[in-house]
């Protein structure tokens, strides 16, 4: 387009529409769209739709809390296209007295809390059912009834301890492999980098599957799948953008930078994991057995190894290492805290997707490191074995956690 002779005729043909300002050209279709919507709503065939079809109602029970003995608290959101009126509440197939915090008619995207004075039985399952004015029912089952933790010192310290065991300690232990890694030659260092790639791929897929699992419980209007896409695609884009900004400012893609990226990605994954642990505990879906914590301890030690693998030829200070460990491990604690009192499937889905997205970016960065170090032979038999070994380690230690 640098040739003025070629550019000139085009300028002439476009000259006609130049008289209209470009902001108007940009906004014009939007105005027409708004007009079309208004026209449809006022005079369009909406009447036909509402007559021909039964009302579309969609209530999502996001959470059933048991704040004290003899009380259930149901959090509900209307993720459907139309307002829904909650008529009655059943608990375990019994119609129960209750109070709704606000109007019984829940508009689109509105939330309600319903308090039901029900003598729930500790350790046993209960099912709550909301019946709407049209007779449709929406149910949610509490797998094992346990009193919902309150944000008191005991709960916070329990989960701080749990998060420390499941997230912080294993990551720090993993970091202790650094002196060992330093003694390895280039080829074996690459093997451990490849192993880290394997670990991360496993974690990434794990996070993605978790995201899809919880997305099934996200209210329709909030589009669980859309949230996953935002997290999965958006996160690597943001991280890559930050990376290129860093390079422009002369910092370059140092091993420490890659290690930090790994720590951030693992931290984001662990935040999702913490949310899941906290909310599962709060809703009685997991009992926090010793075995589970031991499982997480072993499973997550590999995450520490992943962080230090890029640092095989570096000499980072102790403070820096601890910082890396904290970035990766502490989010487990924070996630468990949040998840315990106020998790919603929406946030859990989003954070798992962000974790998966971060891992995509990190795997890409690690791949670059491998390519740079091995003169084009990134997937040497040894490196391939490393990826496979990473997957197998995660699989084997995952058996202890038991899904």
């Amino acid at each position, binding site marked *: 387009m640098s040739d003025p002779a070629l550019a000139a005729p085009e300028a002439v043909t476009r000259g006609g529409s130049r008289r209209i300002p470009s902001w108007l050209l940009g906004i014009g279709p939007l105005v027409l769209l708004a007009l079309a919507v208004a026209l449809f709503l006022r005079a369009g065939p909406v009447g036909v739709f509402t007559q021909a079809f039964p009302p579309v109602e969609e209530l999502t029970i996001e959470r059933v809390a048991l704040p004290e003995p003899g009380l259930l608290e149901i959090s509900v959101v209307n993720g459907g296209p139309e307002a829904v009126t909650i008529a*009655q509440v059943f608990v375990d197939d019994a119609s129960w*007295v209750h109070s709704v915090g606000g109007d019984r008619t829940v508009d689109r995207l509105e939330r309600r809390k319903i308090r039901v004075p029900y003598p729930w039985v500790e350790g046993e399952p209960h099912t709550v059912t909301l019946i*709407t*004015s049209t*007779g449709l029912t929406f149910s949610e089952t509490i797998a094992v009834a346990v009193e919902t933790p309150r944000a008191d010192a005991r709960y916070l310290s329990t989960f701080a301890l749990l998060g420390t065991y499941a997230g912080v300690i294993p990551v720090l232990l993993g970091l202790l492999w650094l002196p060992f890694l330093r003694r390895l030659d280039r080829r074996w260092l690459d093997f451990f980098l490849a192993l880290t790639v394997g670990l991360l791929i496993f974690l990434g897929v794990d996070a993605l599957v978790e995201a899809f699992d919880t997305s099934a419980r996200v209210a329709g209007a909030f589009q669980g799948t859309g949230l996953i896409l935002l997290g999965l695609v958006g996160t690597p884009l943001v991280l890559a953008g930050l990376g290129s900004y860093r390079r422009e400012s002369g910092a370059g893609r140092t091993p420490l930078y890659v290690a930090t990226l790994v720590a951030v990605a693992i931290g984001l994954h662990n935040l999702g994991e913490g949310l899941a642990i906290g909310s599962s505990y709060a809703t009685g879906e997991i009992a926090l057995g010793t075995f589970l914590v031991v499982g997480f301890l072993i499973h997550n030690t590999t995450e520490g190894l992943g962080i230090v693998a890029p640092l095989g030829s570096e000499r980072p200070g102790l403070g820096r290492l601890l910082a890396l460990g904290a970035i990766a491990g502490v989010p487990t604690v924070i996630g468990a805290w949040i998840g315990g009192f106020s998790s919603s499937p929406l946030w859990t889905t989003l954070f798992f997707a962000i974790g998966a997205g971060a891992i995509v970016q990190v795997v890409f960065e690690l791949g670059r490191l491998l390519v740079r170090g091995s003169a084009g032979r990134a997937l040497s038999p040894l490196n391939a074995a490393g990826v496979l070994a990473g997957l197998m380690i995660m699989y084997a230690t995952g058996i202890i956690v038991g899904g």
Partner: protein
Amino acid sequence: MSANDSGARRALEQPITRRKLLAAGAIGGVGLATGGSALALQTRSASPAEHATHHDMMAVGDIRPGAFDPTAYLTQFDYGKESRLPSGQVLREYELVAEDREIEVAPGVFYPAWTYNGQVPGPTIRCTEGDRIRVRFVNRGRHPHSVHFHGIHPANMDGAFEMVPPDGSYTYEFDAEPAGLQLYHCHTVPIKRHIHKGLYGVFIIDPPGGRPPARELVMMMNAFDTNFDNENEIYAVNTVAFHYQKYPIQLRKGELTRVYLVNITEFDLLNSFHLHGNFFRFYRTGTDLERFEWTDVATLAQGERCVLEFTYKHTGPFMFHAHQSEFAELGWSGIFDVREAPHV
């Protein structure tokens, strides 16, 4: 049965009782499932403090005024337009109109019903054995329907094969027999849906000499599959869940009470009636005036019915409910409020 009608009116004209028992309704729901007894309910509902604290929790609300009134239905009997045939036989003429109508089956829960004369159950048709019955049936619904009476009658009066198309009509005519408690319902296929959508009613054929004088109540045990998953969500007697728990039925101590009990519940194999603090004479199908069983639970399969007779020895609120606890907790429970007989 003008005596019964005025009895019902009396019952409705006692606002104090009604308010008191509103609270009892709230507590009753809790007390029942926690294994609470009628005694516990009585003592708790007597406390005004309980009333205040439980009032807010009565968020279950009430049905729309002007809708079908289960309390009135208890004692509404349609004897038809009475005349005599040249032979001297009594002729009773009735009209049943099938129409689609949305009904309220629990406070705030609406159900797209098919009805006889706009109500579920349909009107209670009553006559005496040997009367000539003539029922003109008009179908104003959007599906074909019929009326199938239980009893002894010619094949073409059975409502099983002659389906009446929308805007069509048919006249059923037969002699009422045998004496007992019968019922009528639509027999159009799919029968399951035509019944659970609401096309049924009670059909009482009195024995020629009548039954002993009593306070008479009609109770149809029915249920509603509001989300159409072939399981019931709401259970009741006479359609509205917990209605007689909120508005107890007034009885007098020492007064003979007769309940005409019919089970039309779809999807569940059995339904039952259990009376608290009392026993009743259980006349199966009401065809035999002599033999009865002395019990406190009547269990009926779909389409079965019975006549129950009892007299209360004590005053106070007494529950009556399905002894399938699940049905009781999903709406099929009520209260008899038994009081001293007035001093005359």
